[in-house]
């Protein structure tokens, strides 16, 4: 693994949503680069363009200006192995929890038996082992999000794009799943672009935290997180450097609203 090459490189990115009536500039001159194996979190006020940034990186949206490159190649449509957790859960309503998680494995053509093992392991990890036969409609909001998470883990992409993945989870579940994810990540070292509203979470997980301005979104500041790894996902919060960083980021964001 060439740890130094940029996995995702965003240069002067501009995105505009146009309808007949309005034209909204969502992102304006955004520059961002994620190295191979780096964990970057993005925080920013609501509606500043975080989801938009992620969609561009996934190749689902075409930028109006600038460019986004994956492994040095311009992103044109969905290219590399990119796994996305959508802000809404994007589960297939007609498939059971089991089949929803199985989907990426099936697409990769993995054998049925290994699919079953893997799916069960992941469902256990997100605490939904008993719900494998349920349909999404029969789950609570947080449970649905956990299924979506398990599905992305099953895909295990080279670049994780996660849009508020722990959004509707209670504090404890958040910690449990966050811990698992961090452990998993520390073992394999994939690149992650992580969107969250929880500054503590951003710091606890990331190598770098990026703060965006309010709409049109620009990069306001970047914070290196110089905390050793592996980190204790929860206890790290009581570290002095952590507290310091948290305060800094908070103030940086506070200027925005």
């Amino acid at each position, binding site marked *: 693994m060439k740890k130094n090459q940029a996995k995702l490189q965003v240069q002067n990115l501009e995105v505009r949503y146009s309808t007949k009536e309005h034209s909204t500039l969502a992102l304006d001159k955004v520059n961002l680069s994620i190295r191979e194996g780096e964990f970057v979190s993005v925080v920013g006020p609501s509606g500043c363009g975080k989801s938009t940034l992620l969609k561009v990186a*996934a*190749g*689902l949206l075409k930028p109006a200006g600038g460019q986004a490159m994956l492994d040095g190649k311009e992103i044109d449509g969905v290219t590399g192995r990119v*796994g*996305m957790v*959508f802000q809404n859960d*994007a589960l*297939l309503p007609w498939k059971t929890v089991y089949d929803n998680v199985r989907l990426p494995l099936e697409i990769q053509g993995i054998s049925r038996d290994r699919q079953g093992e893997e799916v069960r392991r992941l469902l256990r990890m997100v605490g939904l082992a008993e719900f494998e036969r349920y349909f999404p*409609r029969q789950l609570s909001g947080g449970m649905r999000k956990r299924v979506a998470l398990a599905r992305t883990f099953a895909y295990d992409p080279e670049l994780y*794009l996660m849009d508020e993945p722990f959004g509707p989870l209670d504090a404890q579940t958040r910690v449990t799943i966050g811990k698992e994810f961090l452990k998993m990540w520390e073992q394999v070292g994939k690149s992650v672009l992580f969107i969250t509203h929880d500054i503590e979470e951003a710091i606890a997980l990331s190598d770098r935290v990026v703060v965006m301005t309010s709409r049109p979104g620009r990069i306001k500041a970047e914070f290196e997180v110089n905390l050793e790894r592996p980190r204790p996902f929860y206890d790290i919060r009581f570290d002095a450097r952590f507290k310091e960083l948290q305060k800094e980021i908070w103030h940086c964001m506070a200027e925005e609203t």
Partner: protein
Amino acid sequence: MSGTEEYGKVKVWSGRIALGVLLLGLWELLSGRAFNAFWLSKPSLILERIVEMTQKGTLWFHLSVTLQEAVFGLIIGMVGGTLLGIVLAYSGIFERWIYPYIMALYSLPRVSLAPLFIVWFGIGMSSKILMVVAMVIFVAFYNAFEGIRNIDKDLLDMMKTYKAGKLQKLTWVILPSITVWILTSLRLNIGMALIGSVIAELVGANRGLGYYITYSSGMLDTTGIFTGLFLIMLIAVVLEQVVIQLERRLLKYR
């Protein structure tokens, strides 16, 4: 108040039967009293006729022909129309070009085309099945097409990020998404298929319920007309129940 509430089977069926009996009873009673019995016949006469036809063996003779035409035509038309809808929905600008022509063809009165069908396809079973297909295929096409326009974009985006192939997109997202629409068109098309086979039998036939109705009409035999219509309704109800069972299975996730 949601239109999907569940009621007990007994309650539903007893109500249905009661309603049916009520309607038939009213018809029986009023026919000949409130209105001219000739034009509306009577349930009892129809029943008598059905028994008579069963004994003579003509019932199954006519019924089976119409049933075959309708069912084969329905299957071919549904599959063909749905596939056409899917293919066209993903054919880019070509769809925009060809679409108005398809809708224009759809508006052609099949009755008027029937004589031309004879010239083109003869008077055998195949031309009748084709007539049914011509009735059925457009609704199937249209609903499949419209269903695809209504697929949740997020789900397709999700499939894209997993780099799903065409076939996988089709089986995991597109087909399940448009199932509601396909079932709708299937239910609408039961009626269409029956109408189609009757129309086909209007022109150049010597069997089938449509033929029987036309023949009875020529004989001023209103009971015969109503018997034919009743049998067609019977087929429709039976086919409808089959679709309802299918729907229950396919849409149980809701």
